[in-house]
């Protein structure tokens, strides 16, 4: 039965070094690639992602503080009392503060139109005021 040859020290040393170099090469390449990728992500990809994300947020109107303030709906000018400014509206510069003169209803210069059909009382009937009045 033939014995297996026993490797000498130099052969073992060379084999161990070669295996070590092979592992080193792969580990070093992988680590260096990871460092370059990390740098590229931080330098180029992350700003782009942030800008695109911010743009999407603005486009969708999801950013709460950038929404348009709610315009108060003013009723048709029927009352002469000026309405107080709404409290729930956001801060905004309002140069036309409503005053009593501007908010009043327009003065009617034309006399009111006569009522179209006022029933005339019959002559035999007296108005109600005259019933209780002592004047002749």
């Amino acid at each position: 039965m033939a014995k297996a040859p026993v490797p000498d020290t130099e052969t073992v040393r060379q084999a161990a070094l070669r295996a070590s170099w092979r592992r080193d090469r792969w580990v070093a390449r992988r680590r260096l690639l990871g460092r370059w990728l990390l740098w590229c992500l931080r330098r180029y990809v992350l700003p782009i992602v942030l800008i695109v994300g911010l743009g999407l947020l603005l486009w969708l109107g999801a950013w709460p503080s950038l929404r348009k303030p709610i315009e108060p709906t003013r009723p048709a000018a029927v009352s002469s009392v000026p309405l107080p400014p709404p409290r729930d509206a956001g801060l905004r510069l309002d140069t036309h503060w409503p005053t009593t003169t501007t908010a009043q209803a327009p003065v009617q210069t034309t006399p009111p139109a006569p009522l179209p059909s006022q029933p005339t009382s019959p002559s035999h009937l007296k108005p109600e005021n005259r019933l209780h009045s002592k004047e002749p």
Partner: protein
Amino acid sequence: MSHNPASTRLVPAERLSAITSLIAEGAVFDGNFHTTRDQGIKVDGQLKGNITFETGGTLHVGATGVIENTRLEADYVFIEGKVIGTVIARKALEITGSATLIGDASYDELIDMHPRARVRGKIEYRGDIDAAPN
């Protein structure tokens, strides 16, 4: 199978091929390594201690190697892994892009550092700073 060591810029390949001692990956060595001969050591595992070559010497820290609390002194120092401590290269110091060095390093003649190397410490040239360039 790779028959050549890692591509180096300063450390001669013959020096890396003449490594005589090896701390293998996964091994943990706690203690000091000291020799007066011009030999070499490669660290792929974990070492806590000093490595000193009084004359000559080549130190190769592999990509998987980690050396902590150390003072390394040799003619040629080639770092691909992680070193925490002080490094003294009497001839050439080479730090690759996969290396991490936390500590001070000094060299007498040549240095090469990859732009992606992570170094936190002081790099000092120990030679004559006013000498004429050769």
